């Protein structure tokens, strides 16, 4: 039997994290093929509703990645995102969603290696948790 492969949705900001993901590829740094990427202009564009939608659809994990604080192409977008995600993460964990399901990272355009590390970690975490059940609409 084939090993179960989780599916993880990754929202990446165009200017840093998406560029970091590109750099990982250009540098041929290998990472697990479990992510499906949605490119957005800024981590500030990511509405928690869309993260909830991913969880409802059965994605086993969701990653949101933006520019490091101070690097935001839109000056402050990631600062607002950081507040939104802090609150979302607390609430999801309070309700009993496993901490590894929804994760966040800052990856700059120069951090191809870090991008790969982040994907490795998220994939491993999600694999350990097993297929998502809570919140999934059957």
């Amino acid at each position, binding site marked *: 039997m084939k090993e179960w492969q989780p599916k993880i949705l990754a929202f990446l900001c165009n200017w840093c994290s998406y*560029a970091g993901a590109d750099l990982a590829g250009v540098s041929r740094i290998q990472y697990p093929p479990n992510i499906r*990427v949605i490119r957005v202009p800024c981590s500030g564009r990511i509405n928690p509703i869309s993260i909830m939608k991913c969880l409802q659809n059965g994605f086993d994990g969701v990653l949101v990645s933006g520019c490091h604080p*101070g690097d935001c192409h839109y000056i402050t977008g990631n600062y607002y995102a950081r507040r939104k995600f802090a609150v979302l993460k607390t609430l999801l964990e309070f309700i009993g969603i496993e901490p590894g399901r929804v994760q966040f990272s800052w990856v700059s355009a120069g*951090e191809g290696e870090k991008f790969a590390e982040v994907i490795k970690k998220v994939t491993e975490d999600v694999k350990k948790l097993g297929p998502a059940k809570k919140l999934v609409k059957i």
Partner: protein
Amino acid sequence: MSSNAPNKSVLVVGAGIAGIQASLDLAELGADVHLIEETPSIGGRMPQLDKTFPTNDCSLCILAPKMSECARHPGITLHPCSSLTSISGEPGNFVCEITEQAKYVDPEKCVACGLCEQKCPTKVVDEFDMHLRKRKAIYRYFLQSIPSNYVIDAEHCLYLTKGACRLCEKICEAHAINFEDKDKVISLNCGAVVLSSGIDPHDPIVHAQYGYKRFKNVVTSLEFERMLSASGPLMGHVTVPSNGKEPKRIAFIQCVGSRDVENKNDYCSSVCCMYAIKQAIIAKEHIKGLEPTIFFMDIRAFGKDFDKYYERAESQYGVKFVRSKVARISESNGGTLRLRFSQENGKRKEEDFDMAILSIGLEPRKKMEKFADCLDIKLDEYGFARTSLFEPLNTTKDGIFVCGAMSGPKDIPESVMSASGAVAECTKFLALERQEKVSKKEFPPEKDVIGDRPRVGVFICHCGINIAGVVDVPQAVDFAKNLPNVEHTEDLLYACSQDCLDTIKEKIKEHNLNRVVVASCTPRTHEPLFRETLREAGLNQYLFEMANIRDQCSWAHMNEPELATEKAKDLIQMAIAKARNLVPLKRLPIDINPKALVIGGGLAGMTAALVVARAGYEVHLVEKDSELGGNLKDIYSTLEGDDPQKLLQETIKEVKENNSITVYTNAKIEEIAGYIGNFKTKVKTGNKKSEIEHGIVVVATGAKEYETKEYLYGKNKRVVTQLEFEKLLHTEKIKEYKPRSIVMIQCVNSREEERLYCSRVCCGAAVKNSLKLKEIYPSADIYVLYRDVRTYGLKEKYFGTARDKGIVFIRYDLEHKPQVEPMDKDNPDSKLLIKTMDPILDAQVVIEADLLVLSVSIDALQENKELAKLLKVPLNADGFFLEAHVKLRPVDFATDGIFVCGLAHGPKYIEESMVQAKAAASRALTILSKKTIEAEGTICWVNPDKCSGCGVCVEICAYSAIELNEEGIAEINEALCKGCGACTASCRSGAIDLRGFTDDQIFEAVNAVEI
């Protein structure tokens, strides 16, 4: 044709950040720019840097968008691997000879797949990575190079040197290798030339005492920067070169090759203190428990917000600062380095470190002399391009300008400012007209697709074997074929090659496609190309979506072809789902009123006004005082010997005589409404009120000397400020004081908790006025009590002169501030006794002074707050105007159409204010020179029926693009929106959406993935 025909062409030499900025500004003004660069890529030094101070911004993240903008701009032609060999002719009509080296790779054909690099057998040390890594003989200068194509290093290529190999040619499926390529000489006819060829790092081999190259663990700061870089040879994991372990203790040695009389580098490199602090902070962030120590003479944190960074490094990060010049380094067993140094009190000390980083200075390029000869320009005593103080962007030859560090050490924002400033100087030699159209290229009319059922065309790229070698492309094609709304699916060998682009255009027509998906590489580099193809085919460019199945799929999952194929299919399906929901977007044209408002009639404001007026645009110059001149009225001399009063009078005269400038004195701005291109401002002068319509705003409101209460100021007439002292010196009044002994105290109210910033000019002013006093009273004793002497850049030389003349510099620190008391307690104006701790003598010294001069801080104006509110632009914590980006947009605000210069932005010298004013003016000209500009296409819009007027979006928008209207409903100013979507994601009622990244599109993309 007469050779005197007006010329729109301009040559920019050197594509570092200064050259890039100059090219972008010139091209925006409508010039035809030729940007030449010696290396195979534009970018210069910045891509080598990991982070930038004082914000720790990722250097590449902020530079890359400018690089691609530069490469894409229709007004800029890039000439990589090229150098300027000669210039002849006259300003306005130069003939420039350029040698373009053979690259042996056809940039039109190369798709940068990298197969050649894998095959190439020859390894060469990599100069970009400071020799810390090897590259191949066919290579890219760095991973994010622009242009992105490979080049062959002829010096090392086996075939080109020994006549055998050609492996790259065999593997290249794009047939891009061309061993027949030859060096070319091109001749360009240009109206003006901008030189921006930068600097070289100092080679520390001459400092035998530090053992560079002898001791493995002694590295230069630039090498260390590459080590720190996440994309560098160590992937950011710094290790000790001798043993590969993480270092515990590292030492930074400052002023290696700077402030060094012995090696004839008696100037300050201006940037090393800050980059050492930055590297120490970043290294500490990388390595837990790391103990960095910085050995320095003075910490020169003179720039905006630098002192706060310095303070944070010490208090928050625990970076240790030791005021000492390291005498020598020796190596003990295992590679540990022993540093010997004298402490300030003369006591010797030794400490061991795992690594030593030499903070090497900035030097003129090695070939400068020859280069200067070819161009017939003169160099200064160090070998930097010679300029004069008040014309810091002019070389000694008319029509040839200089920017960046080529004329002396500069950090990034100063280089950017000088680049934009040089553009202002160029304009008088270029025949530029107001630009009618936004785009230079003609496209067929766009087909109306609204209401049509989506007909999606899907093109899946093999990218040679880059994608197809991992992802099963035929399987992906079969999969895509059967998805809803997909009318046509096709695989292409190289989607970006011209023949494939033609195929896409044909298929759009043949199948009446109204949405296009290309699954290939990254939209970051290729989206513009495909969008243009859609336009050529008569489709709106926003009806396009990409699936990144190379950079983020085949290249990252090379050993898992099946899973990579699954992922690619999902990514394609997501792209199709989004494409179905794409709608055509318009870029709203915004008319530009070709008039400028300049606020502030000091030197910066007048300089900016003159640049704009000389270019033929109307300027309204608003000054709150009764006369023009600002702070410059109180400056009587400069360190370099130039006459500021003459400059002032000439500038005022030119302003008054220029018919395009309307001056308002005793004026107050009461209201500013509108946005880029269309401002309306109400100005009150006396009882008269006028309304000005204008397209841009330059803020040049200045600053003032702080009204201090320290050190008996205001109580004893022998205590004066540095500005007052300067006035005394230039009148007879100084005689009244019979100055035999005078004391100056530096950093009064600067660099303390309330004003934790350096006022930048006071050290220079103290040196200047000390030297002046010495001229008048050679026997006078002068004591300067300082915290750090910050005579940065080429001003360092005068600090040396002052010491040679016997002026005594005594350091104090905040814990032991000097004590001042009157000698005669009953006489309020008696001579003064100044007591201070001398750290060298390690004892208190007492000085009798006839005069005490206080170098008081430069303070932001209180009125800034009001103006900032009117303009909706931010101030920093100290009350100075905060630019859009401290590194790369030093004169712009985040809000388009508003610019800043002079002391309003932060303390600076006269010449720096002038450069910044010219920069602000030329940034303003990039707007004024267009009849219309285009707003972004991917911007936000409000559904008024859903808006409940809570105002979260208004708070959040970084560009002041949202306001609540009279009904309390949010409205977006399309001219200001940058399309980040922060408002969209924060709107609870879903009333705002972001075009191009709509909720619907994200929803459909999420739903497209089958779990």
